[in-house]
C-alpha cells in the first residue's frame, strides 16, 4: 500500500511542486518571522549592553503624567540638581553626573529638511564626556551655541567639524543655529548605536532647549566605588532619595531597553505572520483542490485497490501519507527559504538608518523549526482530509464503471456554506459592534475570525453561484468556438472552479475591503470638512520623531493680521492626568472662535470662554466620568503640582473636536509651550490660494508643520491609511501568486483529464492556437469569477466596517469603482498568464496517443 502511494506520488511531480509551493511560501514567512525577530532581538541586547556599559547605577526622574498608552516615555521629566549632590554624598558612590537626555533634538540637513531616522531615537543630551562617548574629532562643547554630534549623524548628514548646524529641539521648534565643534563615537569606534542620532549641548543649553527648566536633569549617572556591588548600591540610593525617582543598575537598563525594543519588533512578527496566514489560507484551497482532483482522477485505481481488499482506513492513510510527504518536503524547503528571508530582512534592517545596528549573527531559534513543521504539516493535513474521506467512500464497483462518478448535488454543501457564512457574519458583526470589549484584543480576534469564517462560508457557497455566474461571464467569450468550449469547460465542475476561484477571492476581497474603507473615510472627511466645519486652513504636522509637531505661536499673530483672514484659533496639546486618568488636554487661545469654526454646541454650562482654572469637555467624556458642570476636577500637567480645575461647560458630541479643553493660562506647564494647531477662517469670498501661500511663507522657520487647506487635509488624513493599503497590496500580490499557482494546477490537471477530448478536437480540425485559446478562456473565466467574488465579499466587509464606525464620524459609504474595475482587469490578465503553461500542454497533446484506446 505504501509503495503504491509513493509510486503515484512520484509520477506526479509537477502537482507535488505546485501544491507544495503554497505551503512553502507560508512556512517561509512563519520561520522567517522567527529568525528575524530572534536575530534582531539578540542584536539589540548586545547594543544596549554597549550603551550602558559605563553606567553602574542610574537615577531617573519620574514623569508627572505617566502611564497609559505612552508607556515608559520619560519626556521632559526632570530632577533638580540638588538630587545630584545628594547622590554624590551616598557611601559607595565614586562619582555622579547629572545629565539631560531626552528623545527630542533634530538637525536640519543641508537641503533644509529635517533629518529623520527610521524610527531610531534622536537624542538631545547635555555633554558630560567620559562614559561610552568619546570625542573622535574636534573638542567638547564649551559655549551655549556649540554642539557635538555622534559620528553616525555627521556621516548621514554630511556635517563636518566647523559647520554651522540648524537644530530644532523639544522646547523650540523654530531652528536655532549652532556651531559644530566636534563629533564622538561609541566603544568599538561605532558612529551610532542602532541608527540613533545624538546632539550634545552644554548643560545650560540642554536644560533650556530640551527640558525647559534650568538647573535640572533627566538622569543622574552613578559610578560605583571599587568593590561596591551595583545592586547593593542601587538599593542604598533608592532608600535614601525616596520614591519620586526610579533607580536602576546599568544591566537593568540594558535589559529593560532591549525588552522594549523587542516588543516593538513584534510588529515585524505580526506583518510576516499575517503574510504567512494569507499564504497558508489561500494555499489550503490549492492543496484541497489538488487532492480532490487527484482522488477524482484516480477513482478507478482507488476502487480497484478497494476491490482487491484495501480497507477504508488504508485509503485514507494512502491520501494522508501523500499529504504528509508534501507537507514535510514543503516545510523543509520553506524553513530553508525562511532562514534566508529572515537573514536578508535582518541585514536590510541593520543597514537602514546608517548601518548602526551590528547583527549578532543569524540565529535559528527552535520556535522557527517547530513552527515550520507544525504549520506545514497541519495545513496539508487539514486540506487533504476531505479528499481522503472522499477517497475512502469510493465503492469497489466504481472500478468496473466507465465514467467518473456523476456530479454530487450541491444542496448539502450550500446549506453548510450558508450556515458558515452566517456564523462568520455574526462574529464579524459582534466584533464590529465593539461589545466584546478590549480584553485580550477580543474585538480584533472576533473581527479576524469573522472575516476568516466568512471567507470559508462564501467559498462553500461558491459552487452554487458558480454555474449561473460563470455561464454569464463566459458569454463575453462566446463569439468564437474555442471561447464557447472554454466557457463550458469552466462551468463543468462547479466545485473545482469554485475552489480555484475562491483562492483568488481572498486576496481581492481584502484589498477591496480596505479600499472601500479608505474611500469611505475620504468621503466622510470631505463631507465633514465641507459641511460641519468652517475652517478654511489648518496649520499642523504629523509626528515623526520624539519632538511633537509644533510651531511658534507668534506665527498666528502674523496670520491673523493677513488680509482676508477673519478668525483664527491657536491650540496647544499635551497629555495630562485628569482625575487619575492619563488623557489628552488641549489649550485654546480663543474658544469662541473654535466654537464657531468647529461647530461646537453647548450641552450645558458655557463654552464660549474659559479662564484660568476652568475646563470644558465633550458630553461623551463627561458622561464616562459622571461629571456635570460645576464639578471639581483634579489636573496634573507635565510640570508643577496637581491643581484643581472647575468644569464650566460641556459641549455636545462633535465629529471634529473631542476631549478636554482649557485656557492658555497653563501652557507654560505643558511639555512644550509651542503651538500644535492653528485654525484659520477666511472672510467670505476670499480665495484660499494666495492666503495659503502667505501663511506658508510665515511658516518658513517652522519645519515641523505645514498649512493645509480642506482638500490637502482630507488627502493627508486618508493618506494615513496608505501604509495599511500598501501592506494589503503586498498581501494581495502574494495571494494572487498562490491563486495563479492554483489556476495553473487546476487547468493542468483538467488538460490531463481531458486529453481524449483534446485529441478528438484536434483530430476533427481544432488548430493548436484554438486549443490554447480554449484553455485561456477557461482560465480567464475562473479568475474573473474569483475577482468578482472578491470584489463582492470585500465590498460587504468594507461596508460592514464603515457602518460599524458610523458613530465615529464615518457617515458616508463610498465605493472605489475604479479600483474594482482595475482588479477585474487584473484578474483577466492573471488568467491569461496562468493559462500559458496548461495551454501549451493542451496544444502539445499528441492526437494519436490521445485517441488511442486504453
Amino acid at each position, binding site marked *: 500500500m505504501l509503495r503504491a502511494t509513493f509510486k503515484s506520488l512520484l509520477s506526479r511531480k509537477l502537482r507535488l511542486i505546485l501544491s507544495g509551493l503554497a505551503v512553502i511560501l507560508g512556512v517561509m514567512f512563519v520561520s522567517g518571522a522567527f529568525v528575524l525577530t530572534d536575530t534582531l532581538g539578540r542584536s539589540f541586547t548586545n547594543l544596549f549592553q554597549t550603551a550602558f556599559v559605563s553606567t553602574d547605577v542610574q537615577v531617573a526622574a519620574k514623569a508627572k503624567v505617566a502611564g497609559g498608552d505612552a508607556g515608559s516615555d520619560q519626556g521632559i521629566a526632570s530632577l533638580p540638581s540638588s538630587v545630584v549632590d545628594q547622590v554624590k554624598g551616598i557611601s559607595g558612590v565614586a562619582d555622579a553626573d547629572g545629565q539631560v537626555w531626552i528623545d527630542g533634538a533634530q538637525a536640519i540637513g543641508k537641503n533644509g529638511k529635517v533629518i529623520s531616522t527610521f524610527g531610531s531615537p534622536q537624542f538631545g543630551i547635555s555633554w558630560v564626556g567620559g562614559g561610552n562617548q568619546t570625542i573622535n574629532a574636534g573638542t567638547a562643547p564649551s559655549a551655549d551655541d556649540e554642539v557635538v554630534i555622534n559620528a553616525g549623524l555627521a556621516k548621514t548628514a554630511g556635517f563636518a567639524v566647523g559647520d554651522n548646524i540648524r537644530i530644532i529641539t523639544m522646547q523650540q521648534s523654530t531652528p536655532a543655529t549652532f556651531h559644530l565643534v566636534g563629533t564622538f563615537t561609541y566603544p568599538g569606534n561605532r558612529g551610532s548605536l542602532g541608527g540613533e542620532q545624538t546632539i550634545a549641548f552644554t548643560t545650560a543649553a540642554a536644560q533650556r532647549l530640551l527640558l525647559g527648566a534650568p538647573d535640572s536633569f533627566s538622569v543622574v549617572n552613578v559610578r560605583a566605588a571599587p568593590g561596591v556591588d551595583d545592586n547593593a548600591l542601587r538599593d542604598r540610593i533608592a532608600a535614601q532619595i525616596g520614591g519620586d525617582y526610579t533607580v536602576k543598575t546599568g544591566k537593568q537598563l540594558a535589559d529593560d531597553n532591549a525588552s522594549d525594543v523587542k516588543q516593538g519588533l513584534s510588529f515585524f512578527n505580526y506583518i510576516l505572520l499575517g503574510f504567512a496566514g494569507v499564504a497558508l489560507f489561500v494555499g489550503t484551497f490549492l492543496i484541497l483542490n489538488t487532492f480532490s482532483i487527484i482522488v477524482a482522477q484516480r477513482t478507478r485505481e482507488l476502487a480497484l485497490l478497494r476491490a482487491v481488499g484495501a480497507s477504508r482506513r488504508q485509503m485514507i492513510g494512502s491520501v494522508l501519507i501523500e499529504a504528509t510527504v508534501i507537507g514535510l518536503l514543503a516545510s523543509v524547503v520553506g524553513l530553508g527559504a525562511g532562514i534566508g528571508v529572515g537573514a536578508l530582512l535582518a541585514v536590510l534592517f541593520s543597514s537602514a538608518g546608517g548601518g548602526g545596528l551590528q547583527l549578532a549573527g543569524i540565529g535559528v531559534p527552535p520556535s522557527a523549526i517547530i513552527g515550520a513543521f507544525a504549520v506545514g504539516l497541519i495545513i496539508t493535513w487539514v486540506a487533504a482530509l476531505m479528499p481522503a474521506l472522499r477517497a475512502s467512500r469510493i465503492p469497489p464497483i466504481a472500478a468496473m464503471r466507465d*465514467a467518473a462518478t456523476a456530479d454530487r448535488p450541491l444542496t448539502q454543501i450550500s446549506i453548510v456554506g450558508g450556515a458558515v457564512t452566517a456564523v462568520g457574519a455574526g462574529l464579524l458583526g459582534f466584533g464590529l459592534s465593539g461589545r466584546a470589549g478590549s480584553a485580550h484584543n477580543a474585538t480584533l480576534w472576533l473581527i479576524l475570525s469573522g472575516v476568516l469564517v466568512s471567507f470559508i462560508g462564501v467559498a462553500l457557497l461558491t459552487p452554487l453561484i458558480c454555474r449561473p455566474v460563470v455561464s454569464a461571464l463566459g458569454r463575453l467569450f462566446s463569439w468564437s*468556438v474555442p471561447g*464557447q*468550449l472554454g466557457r*463550458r*469547460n469552466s462551468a*463543468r465542475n462547479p466545485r473545482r472552479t469554485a475552489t480555484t476561484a475562491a483562492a483568488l477571492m481572498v486576496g481581492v476581497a481584502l484589498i477591496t475591503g480596505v479600499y472601500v474603507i479608505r474611500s469611505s473615510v475620504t468621503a466622510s472627511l470631505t463631507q465633514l470638512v465641507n459641511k460641519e466645519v468652517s475652517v478654511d486652513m489648518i496649520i499642523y504636522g504629523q509626528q515623526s520623531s520624539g519632538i511633537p509637531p509644533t510651531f511658534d505661536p507668534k506665527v498666528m499673530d502674523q496670520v491673523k493680521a493677513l488680509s482676508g483672514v477673519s478668525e483664527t484659533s491657536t491650540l496647544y496639546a499635551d497629555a495630562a492626568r485628569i482625575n487619575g486618568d492619563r488623557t489628552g488636554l488641549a489649550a485654546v487661545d480663543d474658544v469662541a472662535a473654535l466654537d464657531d469654526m468647529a461647530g461646537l454646541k453647548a450641552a450645558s454650562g458655557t463654552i464660549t470662554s474659559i479662564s484660568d482654572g476652568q475646563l470644558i469637555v465633550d458630553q461623551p467624556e463627561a458622561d464616562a466620568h459622571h461629571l456635570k458642570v460645576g464639578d471639581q476636577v483634579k489636573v496634573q500637567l507635565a510640570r508643577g503640582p496637581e491643581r484643581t480645575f472647575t468644569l464650566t461647560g460641556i459641549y455636545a458630541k462633535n465629529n471634529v473636536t473631542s476631549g478636554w479643553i482649557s485656557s492658555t493660562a497653563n501652557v507654560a506647564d505643558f511639555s512644550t509651550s509651542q503651538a500644535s494647531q492653528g485654525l484659520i477662517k477666511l472672510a467670505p469670498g476670499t480665495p484660499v490660494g494666495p492666503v495659503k501661500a502667505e501663511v506658508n511663507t510665515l511658516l518658513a522657520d517652522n519645519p515641523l508643520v505645514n498649512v493645509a487647506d480642506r482638500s490637502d487635509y482630507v488627502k493627508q488624513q486618508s493618506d494615513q491609511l496608505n501604509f495599511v493599503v500598501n501592506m494589503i497590496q503586498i498581501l494581495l500580490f502574494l495571494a494572487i501568486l498562490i491563486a495563479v499557482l492554483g489556476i495553473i494546477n487546476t487547468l493542468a490537471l483538467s488538460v490531463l483529464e481531458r486529453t*481524449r*477530448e483534446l*485529441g*478528438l*478536437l*484536434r*483530430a*476533427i*480540425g*481544432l*488548430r*493548436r492556437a*484554438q486549443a490554447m485559446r480554449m484553455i485561456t478562456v477557461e482560465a480567464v473565466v475562473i479568475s474573473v469569477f474569483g475577482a468578482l467574488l472578491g470584489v463582492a465579499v470585500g465590498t460587504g466587509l468594507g461596508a460592514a466596517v464603515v457602518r460599524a464606525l458610523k458613530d465615529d464620524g464615518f457617515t458616508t459609504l463610498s465605493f472605489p469603482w475604479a479600483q474594482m474595475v482595475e482588479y477585474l482587469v487584473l484578474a483577466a490578465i492573471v488568467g491569461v498568464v496562468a493559462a500559458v503553461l496548461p495551454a501549451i500542454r493542451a496544444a502539445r497533446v499528441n*492526437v*494519436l496517443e490521445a*485517441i488511442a*484506446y486504453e
Partner: protein
Amino acid sequence: MTTTAAVAGVAARATDVWKVYGSGEAQVVALRGISVELRRGQYTAIMGPSGSGKSTLMHCLAGLDTVTRGEVAIGDTRLGGLSDAKLTQLRRDQVGFVFQQFNLLPTLTAQENILLPLSIAKRKADKAWYDTVIETVGLGDRLTHKPAQLSGGQQQRVACARALVSRPDVVFADEPTGNLDSRSGAEVLGFLRRSVRQFGQTIVMVTHDPNAASYADRVIFLADGAVVTELAEPTADAVLETMKRIDVLAGTRSGAA
C-alpha cells in the same frame, strides 16, 4: 446520384508506405511498403489481426500520423511535408472521423457536437444537407440532449452525423462498432452504408469484426504490416474464411516475395 463519376476518382492513396517505430533493437516495423487506392464513393473495410498495422495505416491515411517512407495523398493533396497547421486544416475540411469511444464532447449537445467541425472552421452548415443527415441518422428528437443522456448507439450515430455534415472527401471510422451491442452496431453500419449508396460518401473503416466488414464494398486484409489480399462485395462468411487463413496467406505471400 454521381456514383459512376465518383467511382472513377481516388479519394485517398497510399504509395509504398513504410512506418517504423523506434530504432536499433527496439525497432518495430508497422507498415512494410503498403500501396492502396481508396476509390471515391466506395465503402472500404480494412481488416487484420491485432498488430497487423490496420490502425496505423488508417492514421497515416487520415493525416493523424506521419509515414517513415512513401507517400500519402487525400484527394489531390499530398500529405508529406505539410505543416501541423495545414494538416489540421486538411482534417477539418476534407476528412471526417468516427472513433470507437470518446467520440463526443460531453459539454455540448448532440446538435452542437454535429456542427462542431463547421463551427471550428467558421463555416455555415448547408441547411438542406444538414436536414438530410439528421433525417438519415434518425436523431431528430434527440438533438438537444447531452451525450450522457444518449445510448451508446445514439452517441455513435451523432458521431457519424458529425463526420458527414462537412461533406468530407473521406470518412475514417476506427472500430465504430467496437463498443456497441450487435443491434446498435447494425444501425450504425447500415447508416454508414446508406451514406455511401445514397450520397456517394467515401468511407474507410478499420474493424476486426467480419460481420461489420460485410457491410463494405471492398475489404483489404492486412498482416504484419502488408496487404495480404482483398475481397470485393464480401459476405460475413467469406470474410471470416479469409481471416482464418490469413496466416497461411501471409506466409505464402512472404514466401513468394
